């Protein structure tokens, strides 16, 4: 009796597995993907740059300033603020802007770079910190998630490292 019940259960499980296989491309992948998409997950700000704090309008282009990213205590990425200049098509050949990163009305950094004509070429330029909360750097140099000057999609993305000693 027990053996036959177990056998029935076993064949039911096998049938369900086959049904799952048949439904995988039509139903299961979509359902599971939707589940993951709606789980309230987000990409680590060290990669994505975090959330937008404000958008500063400039003639012909915008500067999007992001919230400062302060990584997890053991994370090997230094804290930074992301700034994006877009759209690249409207940017002048050479950009030089003083940007207020923390919203206190005072400029914090001067960001200057050349926009290369070749979409695959990396922009060259420098970031000069106007106070000791941020660190200066120039590119090409040492690229890291907290120190960047690159083209990403339709924007020039700059990541300004925060001064850790503060």
């Amino acid at each position, binding site marked *: 009796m027990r053996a036959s019940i177990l056998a029935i259960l076993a064949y039911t499980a096998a049938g369900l597995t086959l049904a799952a296989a048949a439904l995988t491309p039509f139903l299961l992948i979509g359902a599971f993907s939707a589940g993951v998409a709606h789980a309230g997950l987000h990409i680590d700000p060290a990669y994505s740059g975090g959330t937008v704090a404000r958008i500063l309008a400039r003639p012909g282009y915008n500067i999007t300033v992001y919230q400062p990213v302060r990584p*997890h205590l053991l994370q090997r990425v230094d804290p930074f603020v992301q700034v994006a200049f877009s759209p690249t098509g409207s940017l002048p050949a050479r950009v030089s802007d003083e940007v207020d990163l923390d919203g206190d009305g005072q400029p914090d950094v001067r960001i200057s770079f050349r926009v290369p004509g070749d979409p695959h070429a990396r922009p060259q330029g420098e970031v000069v910190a106007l106070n000791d909360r941020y660190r200066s750097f120039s590119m090409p140099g040492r690229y890291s998630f907290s120190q960047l000057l690159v083209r990403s999609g339709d924007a020039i993305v700059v990541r300004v490292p925060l001064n850790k000693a503060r």
Partner: protein
Amino acid sequence: MTTVTDNSSLPHYTARSMAIHSLSAFAGEALALGLATGPVCLASCGPVVLPWMLVQPRGLRTHSTQLSLFLAARLAGYLLFAAAVWTAGSAIPHAWVGRSWLLGGTQLLLAGALFVYAAGFPHPRCARSASAAPLVHIGDSPHPRRSGAATLGFLTGINLCPPFLVAGVRAALLATLPSALIYFAFFFIGTSVWFAPFLSLSVVRRTPSLVTVARMVAVLLACWYGVSGALILMEKVVYG
């Protein structure tokens, strides 16, 4: 015109009561900081504690002793660092030029200690288990090793993990050395609460596979700390 203030309704502070208030305030702050940063401490020290506890014989008493030794040695590391920080003055954690040397060196030492204790040689028990089942499993520990827990605890204590640095900054600003030591001691208590769940490992059944996996984990972690420490030192040499 002279203003006369009546202080009779205010509590009367003596030097002693003010000292007690001040002590309880910063002890509370240290405890809160320890509790708040405990998960990070757990993430930092957990990978070392977990395999170590798993290779120890089963039993709550053994595990309590081992964990206490680990934590006591960690406290010793903390206090030593607190004394050094206070003596050297403020701003050590981030601006101190020797930080990379200490961090890299400690990680290499930790790698060495983990490797020696995890691989189990040249301890005789390794030879015994290996002779019983040649090279099949590294063997569990019939007797708990106190020196291992103490060494690993001390090395993780001075490993300059970020919560530790946060506490270090605060301790360096305190007026006296005893205050810095008390601050670190309370910080230690706060973080140690997070280690209590490791005692549950004392009831996990020890199979040869489990013990072997735990030792392999320790060896792999030793490799990780070794590479990480070497990279820190290499970067220090290359980039200054």
